[in-house]
């Protein structure tokens, strides 16, 4: 099946599920409202967005040197730094650390990069157990699913669905649809997992080059448990998450939490700067940082697509996207859904696999308007549309030109000729007006939900002439 056919199938499944559509509509409306309320002063918001965009742009402009500085400072702090060019290498690094410690049990905090790596599947195939400790991630892991939103991974499930799932997977727990009771049950189950795990894994929100500090934003406290209880902590992140200095963090954090969930601050904000030091009573004995490239350097090489790397993973673009609201995260396919996913994932996994996502947007601009670091998302989606149909394959995007079809290209050539040749255009519209009643009133999928527009008896060209408007 082509990527388009697969995407259409997933879309249809989502659209035909009224419960799913309600869940997304209600949640996205709520998140949009919360973000709006978190920024009551719009001038302040715009100023903060500019600051955030500049911090991220600056960090990217100096990325190679900042990464070196990050490595040096982390190493000085006792954090072991690993570089992975590919997903396979990153997974192998994590596995090696586990094997060195004869570890079989991992407890995980939320990490989209580990989703990108499909790390759980990789490690499970090697006989390792990986338990998700973020409540949403835990729920979808029970159901063998992927996250449908980067901030709220189980948002596609209703509480009734979660209650049924808990009952099925943990028959000894009494059935309840009460959210607090469900949360308490999960917490009790996870406590034991935290205790038993030999390895704790987390993502990274900002990696500070100046100090070698890993910042982790979370609400549930599970992230802190993952990074402090097990004897070994592994942090995985994409190389683009590096920022220059500690002073860059507060504005980004302000933007991140307010854009994501409308919170002024989160319950937890962890700054990890070293493993346990002599005399300290808690904390892991080892901390590892895995820095993943996976095509990011390639994206980095293009002066326009480069902006996709500015993302701070707040999810505001998906919350505000009318397409995401209709189809939900799973329909997209790759780990990161929504507008930023449609921009980043085809670049990481190839236009031949996910290029269709760039076309699944009306370019309405809601995402670009919501982005706290001013990523020009519509412009980038537009660029990828060009990349996938362009004839000359001189650019660096993977899968360039892969979606070009001879038939479509011919249609656009014909269209171009008609509209670039005034005489042809005028004859064509005159013919269309003359034979307007012969034109079929059903035109494909358009007329399944709409009446077909009728060609006017006289074109504006004709009317303007008749009404005495001058030509030149």
């Amino acid at each position, binding site marked *: 099946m082509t990527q388009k056919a697969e995407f259409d199938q997933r879309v249809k499944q989502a659209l035909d599920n009224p419960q799913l559509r309600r869940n997304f509509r209600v949640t996205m409306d709520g998140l949009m409202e919360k973000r709006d309320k978190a920024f009551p002063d719009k001038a302040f918001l715009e100023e903060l967005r500019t600051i955030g965009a500049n911090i991220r742009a600056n960090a990217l402009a100096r990325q190679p040197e900042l990464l070196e500085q990050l490595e040096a400072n982390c190493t000085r702090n006792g954090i072991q730094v690993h570089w992975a060019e590919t997903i396979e290498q990153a997974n192998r690094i994590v596995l090696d650390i586990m094997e060195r410690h004869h570890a079989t049990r991992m407890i995980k905090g939320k990490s989209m990069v580990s989703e990108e790596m499909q790390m759980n599947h990789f490690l499970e195939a090697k006989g390792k157990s990986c338990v998700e400790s973020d409540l949403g991630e835990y729920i979808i892991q029970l159901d063998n699913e992927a996250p449908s939103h980067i901030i709220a991974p189980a948002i596609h499930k209703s509480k009734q669905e979660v209650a049924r799932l808990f009952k099925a997977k943990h028959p000894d727990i009494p059935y309840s649809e009460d959210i607090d009771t469900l949360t308490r049950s999960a917490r009790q189950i996870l406590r034991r997992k935290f205790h038993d795990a030999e390895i704790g894994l987390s993502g990274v929100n900002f990696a500070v080059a100046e100090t070698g500090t890993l910042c982790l934003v979370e609400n549930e406290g599970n992230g802190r448990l993952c990074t402090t209880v097990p004897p070994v902590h592994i942090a995985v992140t994409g190389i683009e998450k590096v920022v220059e200095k500690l002073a860059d963090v507060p504005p980004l954090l302000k933007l991140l939490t307010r854009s994501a969930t409308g919170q002024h601050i989160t319950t937890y904000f962890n700054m990890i700067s070293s493993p346990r030091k002599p005399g300290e009573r808690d904390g892991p004995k080892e901390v590892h940082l895995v820095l993943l490239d996976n095509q990011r350097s390639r994206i980095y090489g293009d002066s326009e697509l480069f902006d996709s790397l500015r993302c701070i993973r707040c999810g505001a673009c998906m919350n505000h996207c009318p397409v995401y609201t209709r189809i939900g995260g799973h329909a997209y396919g790759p780990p990161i859904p929504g507008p930023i996913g449609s921009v980043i994932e085809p670049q990481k996994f190839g236009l031949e696999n996910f290029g269709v996502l760039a076309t699944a947007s009306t370019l309405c601009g809601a995402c670009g308007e919501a982005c706290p670091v001013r990523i020009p998302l519509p412009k980038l989606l537009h660029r990828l549309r060009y990349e996938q149909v362009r004839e000359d394959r001189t650019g660096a995007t993977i899968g360039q030109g892969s979606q070009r079809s001879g038939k479509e290209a011919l249609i656009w050539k014909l269209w171009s000729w008609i509209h670039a040749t005034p005489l042809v255009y005028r004859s064509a519209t005159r013919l269309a007006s003359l034979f307007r009643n012969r034109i079929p009133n059903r035109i494909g999928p358009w007329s399944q*939900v709409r009446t077909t527009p009728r060609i006017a008896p006289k074109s504006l060209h004709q009317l303007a002439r008749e009404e005495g408007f001058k030509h030149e």
Partner: protein
Amino acid sequence: MSLTKQYPGKPEKVYFFGTCLIDLLYPQAGLAGMQLIRREGVQVIFPQDQTCCGQPAWNAGYREQAEAVVLNQIRCFPEEYPVVVPSGSCAGMLRNQYPELFRDKPEAQQVERFSKRIFELTEFLVHVLKIELKDLGQPTKVALHASCSARREMDVAGEHEALLQQLENVQLVEQVRKAECCGFGGTFAVKHPDISAAMVADKAQAITDTGADQLVSGDCGCLMNITGHMEHQGVGPKGQHIASFLWERTHDPKS
């Protein structure tokens, strides 16, 4: 409405760019736009060689095919008069996307000069002509759908509203999620018909729920999509381009 925009004084002559959708399907909207400007004492020139702004190919990724069409349009408007466009979407293409398309090309400067002369119709009526409308119509309730390009790319949703608010007998009613896209998106509606259908159904419902007698928009693409859906379902108010609506309510046929 943005306060930072700068506008020229009232010119003697303007060019009118009719758009291909209006030319073929909604010519009365284009004519009304030209009549509104002419009534203010400005001569309106409608170059006969104009066709389409090139947006369909540009948005589909066929940049080379768009280029040829764009160059043909630019040739049609040689004098330094303002170019008025009765569509947020096409105006956005002419003003913002043309310079993008020709960024690294020899024509870049020429294209940029042209793009600076582009005005969306309602912004031109409000800021350049400072038009004052006298409502001759019956009391009516109107829902406005400002297209995404009018709202975000051109930032003229406020100008649409300001014009409607000048009309004494018109009550402007607000739909829920008024800033949400109607699901047209040019080729999007054809490439992803199921998602588009879900979006337009919600938009049509929101507009119908206002109880408006009439839907007004500054973009015929959205109108074709939304009213097409409402007609198909047999519910909802009738739709009209804002230029036709303004002209009909302020024009005395006997004068």
